[in-house]
């Protein structure tokens, strides 16, 4: 009984964490690349975008999982599109009402969450097959993975591009803090505009691939060594 409980727990954790690390939507799956490039010129806007995506992803995943047995298989995708578009519009309206400055900076990128591959992708490949709670976890995990990804890109860009880091309160648009890490005249402002976005994303991708490869390599070596030890043990 107890072992079963533990196993269940670890399974939940696995669902939750896979979206963050092993199948991170930004650096591993490369889903929804537009907002990663477009909304990451400042940390505040990237954070806001991440939050919006989390909200949409959690709600759509849960809803779609709720109705997964009701939807006739043939018209699955059109129904998903309607649900996603409704949720995105609602999130957009709420943001324009309560986080006006942030919503204005994000602009059209807020609306095009509708066609973001992450959302429909998770709906299709996960929420349509799994229980409500698991889908909720998956949405939260993938959303967090997305948030971490955009924030990472944004931090790199803002620090190199302006020499400092600021954060605006998403509700009021007033600056909460701003630290200048090095004088502005040494900042490379190229990183705050479009080429910087591509270059930073490209470099971070390469770094992610390299780290992943190294990790896999180590694991394989470990497994080999273990096998060797086992073999040696067997021989004795």
């Amino acid at each position: 009984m107890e072992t079963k409980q533990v196993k269940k727990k670890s399974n939940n954790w696995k669902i939750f964490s896979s979206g963050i690390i092993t199948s991170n939507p930004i650096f591993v799956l490369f889903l929804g690349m537009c907002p990663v490039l477009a909304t990451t010129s400042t940390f505040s806007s990237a954070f806001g975008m991440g939050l919006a995506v989390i909200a949409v992803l959690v709600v759509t995943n849960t809803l779609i999982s709720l109705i997964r047995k009701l939807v006739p298989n043939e018209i699955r995708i059109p129904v998903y599109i309607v649900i996603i578009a409704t949720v995105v519009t609602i999130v957009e309206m709420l943001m324009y009402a309560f986080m006006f400055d942030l919503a204005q900076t994000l602009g059209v990128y807020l609306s095009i969450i509708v066609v973001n591959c992450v959302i429909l992708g998770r709906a299709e490949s996960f929420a349509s097959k799994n229980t409500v709670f698991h889908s909720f976890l998956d949405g939260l995990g993938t959303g967090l993975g997305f948030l971490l990804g955009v924030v990472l890109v944004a931090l790199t860009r803002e620090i190199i591009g302006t020499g400092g880091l600021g954060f605006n309160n998403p509700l009021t648009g007033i600056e909460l803090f701003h630290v200048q890490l090095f004088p502005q005249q040494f900042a490379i402002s190229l990183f705050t505009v479009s080429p910087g976005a591509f270059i930073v994303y490209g470099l971070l991708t390469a770094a992610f691939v390299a780290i992943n490869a190294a990790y896999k390599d180590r694991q394989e070596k470990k497994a080999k060594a273990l096998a060797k030890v086992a073999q040696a043990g067997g021989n004795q």
Partner: protein
Amino acid sequence: MADWLRILIAVAILGGLIALLIISYILNKRTKKPEGCIEIDEHCASCNIEGCAVRSVAVEIERAQGEDEK
């Protein structure tokens, strides 16, 4: 115009559009492809780009997950 009428029209518009999409979707699925086309497989339904590097990764991961669950 009364609010309830506006909402009613909104429901009608939305219903019409959804019906349109579903009809076209189903009709399109039932129309056979001409012979000799490149098959774009059904994975990555959101963004199924043939020859997309992303896609092969996504498919692999999905497979791996499937095996894990087994």
